[in-house]
């Protein structure tokens, strides 16, 4: 089947240009990712004690220490990153793919996916990723509101950042990661450069993807070179 073959190509592309890179840079990447972003922090702290959540594409697990009164099942594609995330109690970390999450549907009170969806290489796969997260959330039922998901993606509009991209630039790009490996035996070794694939989101594109995926945007905004949105499922649970 043609469409199946295409999706296998995209998978292989992401394997090479996203997953393998994170495996290689995991420790260095993790050492640079320790400060939680305030909007994400606030979202996690607003969850009730005993709430059950997902952290899809948890990386080194930097959001897991934020709230110890909830239980988060965190997942990542990179084993090296998942291993770093594993240390955070009382939560759990597994290896999983955002397009095939191994969780029951309609169960979770909240989900976060921070700087992950922009690594998928086609619009269909990005929308499918959002759909997969939304279907894990508890639907609203009568007066009880449904679960909420917070999604962050990198913005195209970041003129003032050191990257300097802006409206009109190419949205599908390879971003270098320079890995300096100071080994005592070879202090003059050249730094190794890895390239990760990114899709840079335009204004309103994330909201549109959520809408197409069957979600409703409750809140959204721009925060330090990123677009973010808090979304819920549109469908209600029928008793």
């Amino acid at each position: 089947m043609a469409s199946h073959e295409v999706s296998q190509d995209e998978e292989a592309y992401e394997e090479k240009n996203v997953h393998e890179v994170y495996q290689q840079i995991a420790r260095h990447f993790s050492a640079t990712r320790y400060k939680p972003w305030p909007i994400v922090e606030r979202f996690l702290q607003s969850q009730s004690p005993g709430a059950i959540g997902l952290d899809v594409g948890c990386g080194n697990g930097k959001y897991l220490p934020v709230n110890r009164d909830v239980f988060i099942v965190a997942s990542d594609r990179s084993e090296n990153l998942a291993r770093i995330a594993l240390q955070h109690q009382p939560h759990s970390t597994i290896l999983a793919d955002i397009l095939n999450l191994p969780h029951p549907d309609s169960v979770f009170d909240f989900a976060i996916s921070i700087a992950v969806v922009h690594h998928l290489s086609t619009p269909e796969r990005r929308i499918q990723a959002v759909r997969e997260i939304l279907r894990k959330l508890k639907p609203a039922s009568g007066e009880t509101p449904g679960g909420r998901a917070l999604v962050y993606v990198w913005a195209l509009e970041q003129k003032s950042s050191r990257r300097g991209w802006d409206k009109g630039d190419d949205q599908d790009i390879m971003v270098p990661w320079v890995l300096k490996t100071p080994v005592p035996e070879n202090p003059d070794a050249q730094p190794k450069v890895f390239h990760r694939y990114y899709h840079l989101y335009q204004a309103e594109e994330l909201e549109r993807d959520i809408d197409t995926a069957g979600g409703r945007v409750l809140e959204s905004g721009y925060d330090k070179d990123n677009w973010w949105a808090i979304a819920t499922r549109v469908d209600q649970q029928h008793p």
Partner: protein
Amino acid sequence: MKLLTVNFLTCAVKTCKGSPAAFPLHFRDVELELHDVEFQPDFIRNIITRVDWEGLHKMANELNFPTIPEVKPDGEALQSEQLLRDLHRLLLETQVAEGRLICGNCGHEYMVKEGIANFLLPSHLV
């Protein structure tokens, strides 16, 4: 991997979604370890309300933990520190170091290695 995690896991294969046989996943050849996790009675009390008790009960039976109550404890029962400590030990401190998790619907096996369960599917199942 903490045993509590299994209550929030099912098969990653699309066609197994919603199949009653896909939840809970079944353990095979497990090597369990006890890890110290700080005891927080309120955490256990709050989490219990969100646990699928039937699924938990099944898992506990398969792993030969005999002491878990038949029905989900609530109200007065959740004031018992002994019960909360037992559940804390089972759900958070008892962890799977090595083993396999198997889907009762499609039979696919997920490996647990050094405490991490791997749900990445081979490409023919995606």
